[in-house]
């Protein structure tokens, strides 16, 4: 049977400014949701509280960033519409943040890699010509500095701790390394936003990130992995290609809002 040829409609030109804000917001929304899975399950009470606090900060940052994205987009979508009523292919987060939480070492290692990226990025964005974004970045930077202290100190404890903790956190870093290139990657959106004075310089961000991460890994007696073969690197999250894990996360995160649209409590 021959199917009629379907000519796809030309994809609408994405608004780079909106895309940029969605990437920032979605990274935090998805990681905040992931991290909140530890609530009630962390190894010690202080850690349970700390991870819930960090998750709440991330969700708060996501709320503001997605709200701003909706305003710039001008289609009447607010932060809730963007969080609860988009499909997985419409999410713009990198794949690093959607991976299952793993063990405690994996969670901490992922937070650390992300937190370093966050402080470097927010620091740069305090100079954004988008004054709303600059204001959000200034405050988020203060929060992110506490986040990276938390994850960074744990990297030291685990890396320079017992044989078991060292082995687990080294394995986590090794497993996560192929998701790093996507976190640091830049495409037309990043370049356009940087040139417009809105976004951070992706090249400078990547350089700073490597220096800061390497410094802590060395102190933690951990080995910085070698770059992974290009074909093995994660890619596609920024344009909606995700791992199977995102769909499951969204199902849990979105079900109440979708089952009871417009509900208030």
């Amino acid at each position, binding site marked *: 049977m021959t199917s009629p040829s379907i000519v796809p409609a030309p994809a609408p030109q994405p608004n780079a400014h909106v895309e940029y804000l969605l990437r920032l917001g979605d990274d935090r929304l998805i990681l905040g949701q992931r991290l909140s899975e530890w609530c009630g399950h962390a190894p010690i009470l*202080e*850690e349970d*509280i*700390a991870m819930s*606090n*960090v*998750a*709440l*900060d*991330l*969700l*708060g*940052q996501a*709320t*503001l960033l997605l709200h701003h994205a909706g305003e710039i987009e001008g289609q009447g979508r607010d932060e809730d519409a963007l969080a609860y009523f988009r499909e997985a292919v419409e999410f713009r987060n990198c794949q690093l943040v959607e991976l299952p939480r793993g063990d405690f070492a994996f969670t901490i290692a992922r937070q650390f890699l992300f937190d*370093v990226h966050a*402080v*470097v990025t927010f*620091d740069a964005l305090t100079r954004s010509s988008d*004054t*709303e974004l*600059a*204001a*959000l970045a*200034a*405050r*988020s930077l*203060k*929060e992110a*500095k*506490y986040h*990276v*202290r*938390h994850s*960074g*100190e744990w990297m*030291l404890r685990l890396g320079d701790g017992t044989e078991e903790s060292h082995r687990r956190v080294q394995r986590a870093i090794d497993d996560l390394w192929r998701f790093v290139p996507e976190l640091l990657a830049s495409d037309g959106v990043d370049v356009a936003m940087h040139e417009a004075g809105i976004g951070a310089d992706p090249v400078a961000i990547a350089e*700073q990130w490597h220096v*800061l991460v390497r*410094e*802590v890994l060395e*102190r933690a007696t951990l080995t910085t992995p070698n770059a992974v073969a290009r074909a093995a690197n994660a890619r596609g999250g920024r344009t909606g290609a995700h791992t199977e894990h995102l769909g499951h996360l969204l199902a849990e995160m979105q079900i109440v809002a979708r089952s009871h649209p417009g509900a208030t409590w």
Partner: protein
Amino acid sequence: MSAVPTREGVLALLDQVMDPEVPVLSVRELGIIRDVEIDEAGDVTVVVTPTYSGCPAIRVIESDILEALHGAGLRAAVRTTYSPPWTTDWIDDASKAKLKAYGIAPPGRTEEGGLVQLMRARPAAQCPYCESRQTEVRSEFGSTACKSVNWCRGCGQPFEEFKAF
């Protein structure tokens, strides 16, 4: 108060609105009231800056502010601003003394330093119970985002510190 609101009158009302998480400090003492605007029609706008991005208290604070002003017969609204970002440096000494009397170590000066500053760079918190400086931070994240959990070696008590932010 009279039908025509004054800035002083509004501020006096705001002095009565307490932070829901730290009820010894008013919203003014917390430093989150950035401005009060009164237009020609007598409509009041209170400009508020939130503390942490994820602080769940902010909506309660906003509704408490509106309740206080509406209760005084004013037409009032709250506007949120994020710039400049809130800092604990806006909490004055008298308010810090109230925090201490309540059992929360007041915030010290905000930390300087690099983007990745592992290990607390600010001085150890002073125990609000025995005033010992021989204290250690157990976690930078306490019962709320704005507080750290500390332990006093002097009197053996745990206590919270309002984090420098």
